[in-house]
């Protein structure tokens, strides 16, 4: 089991990227929905 620091670094990076990506995707879908109204 890798050290806590390594896990922390990877968790931080991967979770951030996923969060940033999904935030952009969700906002995109929401704005497009409003445009279609």
């Amino acid at each position, binding site marked *: 089991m*890798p*050290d806590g*620091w*390594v896990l*922390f*670094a*990877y968790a*931080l*990076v*991967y979770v*951030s*990227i*996923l969060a*940033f*990506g999904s935030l*952009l*995707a969700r*906002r*995109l*879908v929401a*704005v*497009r929905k*409003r*445009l279609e109204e």
Partner: protein
Amino acid sequence: MTRFEKSGLWGALALLTAGAVVAVWSPPDAIQGDYVRIMFVHVPSAWLAFLAFGVAMAASITWLVKRSPTADAVAASSVSVGVFFTALALLTGMIWGRPVWGTFWDWGDARMMTTAVMFFVYLGYLALRRAIDDPLQRARRSAVLGVVAFAQVPIVHFSVVWWRTLHQGPTIVRPDPTIDGRMLAALLVNLFTFTVIYVVLVLFRLRLSSAEESLRARMLSAENPLAGSAVASPDLEVLRNA
């Protein structure tokens, strides 16, 4: 979401997983042990920061020459994503430094210093954009800043390097991880993965900006119906049948 966008997301996710797998498969370093794996997320993040800001500079120059709104949008999107990765680069650098060299911040590392300065300069860029409403003025001023901000990176870097050579403070003996063949492969895979993720994020950011622009334009025109539209031509059918 279009099929292109969906496949972009899934592709990025797949590559991210591949990068993680490869990072686990890579052997531990002789000196640093498992901590060397942090390199596989730190180096790509830093590389992306420079790529993103370089792209922003190119887009800014394009705007200054061609006045194309797309160029402005690309610059802004690239800086947003770039600031994100700069923050990750700084954080992973600090997380790497603590267990390996005993300190979160290595004052002897010119690159970390330059990255930190870049972070603040581009935060300023984003703050500038947020402060201007008029799109033309915003594009113009951002373009000027976008060029100046990247141009000063090498100057800042050399200044810190020269400062270091005179200021022989506590030097942290830092053995560079001897690059094993598998380590190198893992690093390259992650560099590729992160680059694709950068492209996907910028594309999404661009489409989001463009969608928000359309929405804003539509809202503005809806609030101001054309004067005189309340007056309609007389309905002759009604009059004839009256």
